[in-house]
């Protein structure tokens, strides 16, 4: 912070203005309207009536702008979640989220932070919604990740590769789905609808993906179950130990082909830039 603060009356006035702006929009008529009757009288008296309406109706312009701007950013940040809810219901959840977590940063892109947790808490009994919010959050995270140089093992690394932990790049996220949401998200991206999208039936068995942030966007890489298990273990274990754990959980048949398959997974993951380096 720099310099001195403004006068006390300005602080009071801005607090009153902020309260008006954040007044939730009224949903009772089936459209979103400014609830001008809820505005604080003492603040409304600060505003002059105009040729286009009284003071409260003029303040309503800012009140509506606040909510519609934030709804739009949340919808764009959580597009799959928004479509599974449908925009009308999504905006209601968004309102509760924003009342509980009003934006605090000049960076509008940070406003949606934590929304997936909010959905998970509010809609714990709806696994598709919870999963959709997690997928959107993962997608958002890798899209915004800093650019890091992909790790390419050198011959000098060979000796310690199996005893070190591979660091997953910040531009990569591993996601599990019980519903075919990655494909649905991709399909819905080309639609402009606001209505609730049909819920897909649950998958017979979970599927795993790696989301990889690239200069042109986010690549969706399907993972084999054992491959996903290995990469998940790499988060906490050195490579050799993670491979041993996977091997221990394999059937005899699987175990025979594991070394070759693991080499293939690791070669592809390195080629796609899954890792940023080795932990010291």
């Amino acid at each position, binding site marked *: *912070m*720099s*310099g*001195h*603060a*403004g*006068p006390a009356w*300005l*602080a009071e*006035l*801005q*607090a009153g*203005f*902020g309260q008006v*702006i*954040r007044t939730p929009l009224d949903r009772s008529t089936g459209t979103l309207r400014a609830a001008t009757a809820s505005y604080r009288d003492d603040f409304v*008296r*600060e*505003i*002059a009536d*105009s*040729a*286009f*309406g009284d*003071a409260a*109706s*003029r*303040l309503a*312009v*800012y009140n509506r*702008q*606040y909510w519609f*701007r*934030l709804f739009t950013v949340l919808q764009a940040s959580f597009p799959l979640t928004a479509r599974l809810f449908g925009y009308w219901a999504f905006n209601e959840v968004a309102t509760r989220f924003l009342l509980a977590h*009003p*934006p*605090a*940063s*000049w*960076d*509008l892109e940070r*406003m949606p932070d934590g929304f997936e947790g909010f959905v998970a808490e509010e809609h714990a009994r709806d696994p598709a919604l919870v999963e959709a919010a997690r997928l959107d959050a993962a997608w958002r995270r890798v*899209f*915004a*990740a*800093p*650019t890091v140089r992909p790790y390419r093992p050198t011959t000098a690394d060979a000796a310690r590769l199996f005893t070190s932990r591979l660091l997953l790049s910040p531009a990569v996220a591993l996601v599990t789905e019980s519903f075919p949401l990655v494909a649905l998200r991709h399909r819905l991206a080309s639609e402009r609808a606001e209505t609730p999208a049909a819920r897909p039936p649950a998958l017979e068995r979970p599927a795993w993906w790696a989301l990889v*942030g690239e*200069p042109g966007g986010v690549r969706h890489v399907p993972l084999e179950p054992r491959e996903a298990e290995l990469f998940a273990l790499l988060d906490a274990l050195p490579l050799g130990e993670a491979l041993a754990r996977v091997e221990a959980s394999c059937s005899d048949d699987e175990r025979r082909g594991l070394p070759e398959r693991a080499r293939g997974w690791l070669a592809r993951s390195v080629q796609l830039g899954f890792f940023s380096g080795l932990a010291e």
Partner: protein
Amino acid sequence: MARDPVQRWAPASTLTGVTLPADALGLGLRPAHYPYLFERWPRVDYFEAISENFLGAPGRTLEKLDRVRERYPVVLHGVGLNLLGHEPLDEAYLDALCRLADRVDAPFVTDHLCWTGASGAAHHDLLPVPYVPELIELAAERAAYVERRLGRRFGLENLSSYVEFTRSTMSEWEFYTSVVRESGTWFMLDVNNIYVSSHNHGKDPDEYLASIDFSRVLEVHMAGYTTEPDGSFVDTHDHPVSEPVWALYRRAWERGGPFPTLLEWDAHIPAVPELLAELEKAREVRA
């Protein structure tokens, strides 16, 4: 004789290596433009980037800005400085803004004469204050500080506003011109905003224009507005520039041109050729 307001008044310490032609025509840079830009590299004098889109942005976003900067001058336009928030300015924000301005070697940096948040809450809107002498001093001191921190010309943009405060004791233009004069900073004059606010508050836009010292105008913004059902105007940046606003622009040009002119379009963004055609109207209007 053609004047160069960008150069003429700038103290040597705030001059950077990059300057714009005095009559430059520029476009507000938006992500939707990248595919066209990177393929065609159209003829545009400069681009204006929204500062907050790049402050703390991931590397790939900054790399796109760098690519644009390799071909065009880039000026910065902020929406998050919060010049008139009651709390002191955010030094971390200013640090990041200085780094970004250095990265693109911005000929100038601008933001709004407004507040955007208070008491720890960010409202993400450009909000007006009462126009009173006490706030001239506050805004001027802060604006001058920002210019010193940037080491570049810093311009203040006038708002589109939808309310007037009962405690205001002067007009918006008296407040605006006083802040620029007392701070020694610059006008970033939005002609559409003059038109919108004048309409909403029953003021004469030409009286507004007459108050401006055009030798201190860094840049003029043009954009489209929306008419609400009650007849008031809202600055939405989602339409072509209206005819009355072009007419006001012509009168501004007659009063104080040449000045760099920038077209902003933020929603329902048309293809770049359409934007360029809209921008070209500026050249026709001022011919």
